[in-house]
């Protein structure tokens, strides 16, 4: 287990086997439209990285390419120095809310228990202790009361927390979250960020697509500015201080998108 003390001092050059996540020369295209161009970035253990960029910048695609959900034209993804292996339990992924069928006949507890399926393995049934564990995770996100409710009856914030609980149940080293704060209220937002910070403090690696530039510095330790390619990546303070945000969102971006507009 990697504790917080294992976080290397800034500036030290790491070998890729130490790095939880290292992406090199990643190219992704939909048909003949490039989406990601030569993306290179790494995330250290205990870091909270925000992936930031305009619409269509390839933020979700980056996360999905890391876990092999979209085909890569070229490039490598290294997870602790090895290729990404589905099923080895190192990576947890929280999708955007829109992509699942909320009418699906499952309760919040059922969905969180799905996070444990990897630990349970092929054809073994879900047992009492697994359900207890899932309930524990729901409790951690403050949803224990709604464990038995059909998922369609949960509010937007509750759905998001349920997915976070499912990721927690996976007990992974790396957490990839696609807009975990989209459509949630302020209380839920604080709650989710506390959970993510706790995970980072425990040495896990968090990479999240994030939209709100106002809270960037408060919530995250690192930032990855993306618009088809990496504009800048590094500790959040340096990234925010530079002019890179304008270069990411467009030099002529209208007010509201840029941090200076706030």
């Amino acid at each position, binding site marked *: 287990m990697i504790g917080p003390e294992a976080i290397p001092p800034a500036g030290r050059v790491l070998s890729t086997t130490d790095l939880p996540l290292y992406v090199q020369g990643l190219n992704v295209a939909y048909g003949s439209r490039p989406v990601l161009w030569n993306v290179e970035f790494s995330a250290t253990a205990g870091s909270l990285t925000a992936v930031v960029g305009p619409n269509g910048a390839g933020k979700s695609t980056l996360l999905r390419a890391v*876990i*092999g*959900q979209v085909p890569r034209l070229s490039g490598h993804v290294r997870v602790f120095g090895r290729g990404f292996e589905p099923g080895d339990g190192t990576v947890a*992924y929280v*999708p955007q809310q829109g*992509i699942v*069928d909320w009418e699906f*006949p499952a309760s919040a507890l059922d969905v969180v228990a799905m996070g444990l399926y990897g630990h349970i393995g092929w*054809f073994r049934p879900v047992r009492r202790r697994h359900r207890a564990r899932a309930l524990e995770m729901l409790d951690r996100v403050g949803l224990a009361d709604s464990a038995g409710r059909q998922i369609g009856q949960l509010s937007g914030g509750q759905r998001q927390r349920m997915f976070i609980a499912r990721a927690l149940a996976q007990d992974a080293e790396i957490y990839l979250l696609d807009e975990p704060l989209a459509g949630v209220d302020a209380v839920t937002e604080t709650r989710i960020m506390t959970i993510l910070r706790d995970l980072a403090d425990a040495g896990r690696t968090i990479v999240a697509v994030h939209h709100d530039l106002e809270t960037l510095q408060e919530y995250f330790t690192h930032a990855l500015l993306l618009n088809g390619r990496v504009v800048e990546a590094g500790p959040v303070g340096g990234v925010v201080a530079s002019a890179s945000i304008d270069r990411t969102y467009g030099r002529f971006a209208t007010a509201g998108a840029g941090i200076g507009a706030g």
Partner: protein
Amino acid sequence: MTVQEFLVLDLPAILTAMLACVACSLVGSFLLLRRQALLADAVSHVVLPGIVGAVLVTGALTGVAIMAGALVAALVAVAAIELLRVFGRLEAGAAMGTVFTTMFAVGVAMLEWSDVAGGYIDARHVLFGSLETVLWMSPGDLATVPRQIVTLAVVLAVLAGLCGCFHKELAVSTFDPALAALLGFRPRLVSIALVTATGAAAVAAFEAVGSILVVAMFVGPPCVARMLTDRLSLQVWISVLVAAVAATAGYVLAAFGPGLYGSTNSLNAAGTIAVTVGILQVVSMLFAPRYGALSATRRRQSSQSATR
């Protein structure tokens, strides 16, 4: 009607219908949740060229051969549909419609041009089924249990076993294929397995009810269950129950219904089963306690009057 008549004529037909309905509805539950109900339609059509092809190749209508032929046809069809979808960027419906009509047409042509038509199956049986021809010649003698019943029982047992063992894998790859892939559950493999299961259920039921009414059994009972519950395992059980009830009621209606108005003829049982399923669906869509259209309307009205 004597007991002997019932055992020879009616019992085997009821059993066949019931087994067929239950097998199809078991697979259909998952197809419905994947919004792939029409895959059942496509697969049940492509089973025809598979069966005719197998008969032409082996020269006999044996259970194993037609099952193999039908499964090969189902997998070929799904591969072709995927090819059209991925490379042709076609909507799933258009890809499906192209493939299954083509393969069905090939089946019909093969049927007409070969001796298979005269010998074993004809177009009428393909379309309407031949439930009435399932007979138990000497009741009590297990050796003469009709072949269709044995095939269906085996298929149902295998499908039920698979659904039991892989319940969890089916659920996760249906709900969230991305998570299933991440956890190493190979959602693509699960999809292929489901298509194979669809093909197996379709071919086993095909002989009894024909290639089109099979769709009623795949889609109908799961739809009824879907209107009634929000729990996956309960949904599967309800749809199995609905399937069994509809099969029995449908057969009774076909065999004895015309007697009510004094006719000695009987109706096509596959058709009456499909109609029974349809009626149960209409009832569930209207009156289901929570999701039925009427109760939804009533709830809306009462909440409006409450806010007023």
